[in-house]
């Protein structure tokens, strides 16, 4: 035992260590181990170094090579995916550039021009089942309707509403055409 051991350590620990060392000292190789070593030596004699050839390197490089290959594949796939994403992003940007142009003016322009004229046109159903304009002074042959038509100064017109005509309020439109400036 070292002097440091005896002077510095717990005496019981030192005692147990000495006892354990004595027990270990009694260990002898088993006959099985002797036989295995003998077999190893015999095999070594049969296979001389000349027949062995160069000492085979342990295959420790294999895991590293595999890991390096996987890493290289991962990098290549990453580059390809990145390129694909970049291309799709450019395409999306190009498409969005086309579709983002406003189809209608977004400023203070409205659907209908402000200068327009509205008319009230009397109409009745014809024998063909269509509404046709009639002379307001003639007698009703069927149910009469008022068609409100708005004509704009850009040439467009639209039918605003069609309402059944009330014979009692007919004097509001003596000639059948009552222009109203909007």
């Amino acid at each position: 035992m070292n002097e440091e051991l005896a002077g510095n350590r717990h005496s019981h620990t030192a005692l147990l260590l000495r006892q354990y060392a004595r027990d270990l000292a009694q260990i002898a190789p088993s006959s099985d181990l002797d036989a295995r070593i003998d077999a190893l030596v015999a095999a070594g004699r049969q296979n001389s170094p000349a027949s062995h050839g160069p000492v085979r390197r342990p295959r420790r490089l294999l895991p590293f090579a595999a890991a390096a290959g996987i890493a290289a594949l991962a990098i290549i796939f990453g580059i390809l995916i990145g390129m694909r994403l970049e291309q799709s992003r450019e395409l999306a940007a190009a498409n969005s550039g086309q579709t983002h142009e406003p189809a209608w003016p977004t400023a203070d322009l409205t659907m209908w021009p402000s200068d327009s004229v509205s008319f009230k046109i009397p109409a009745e159903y014809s024998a063909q089942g269509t509404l046709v304009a009639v002379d307001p002074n003639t007698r009703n042959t069927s149910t009469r309707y008022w068609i409100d038509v708005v004509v704009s100064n850009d040439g467009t017109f639209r039918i605003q509403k069609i309402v059944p005509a009330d014979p009692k309020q007919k004097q509001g439109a003596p000639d059948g055409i009552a222009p109203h400036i909007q």
Partner: protein
Amino acid sequence: MARLAAGDAHAVHELYQRHGRALLRFSSAMCRSRQAAEDMVHDTFVALMRERISFDPAQGSVYGYLCGVLRHRVSRHFRQQRRWVALDADDDTSPVHAADSSGPADEISRSEITAAFRRAMLELPLQHREVIALCDLEELPYVTVAGILDCPVGTVRSRLHRARALLTIRLASLELIDLQVEPSMVQRGLT
């Protein structure tokens, strides 16, 4: 070793005759079972025959070199075992057949203490176990142990100090020793 490097297989047998017993002693202090200890010694000699020998007499003795090879085998063995074997498996805490000339009662008590001590040793971390085995059990000089462990002598000293403290704590927990006698050592070991 020169003959072995030249391919003389009989040199292996001579090395085994000369150092096999000591190697088995070290291996038994490190491994949990007698079978594993013998396997490690066998693997050491297999490695000597199959791998390139880099022994340099200027750097240490043949026994130190063989201990270094054996230590690598033991470390690799425990790395592999740690993955799938429970700690208590394959546990053989009485590898030594004691032959003291005491009475039967003393013999039983002594073997129990030895088994408990061995259990405490095996519960130490590997690097602490090996430094105790080499310094305290094999009583090798610090320089030789530093060569085997491939570390500076100062590292051997500090590691040994901590290993002894850990062993003392473990022995106290097993009630094999009484820590009240020298509590300062435990405090040093824990810091």
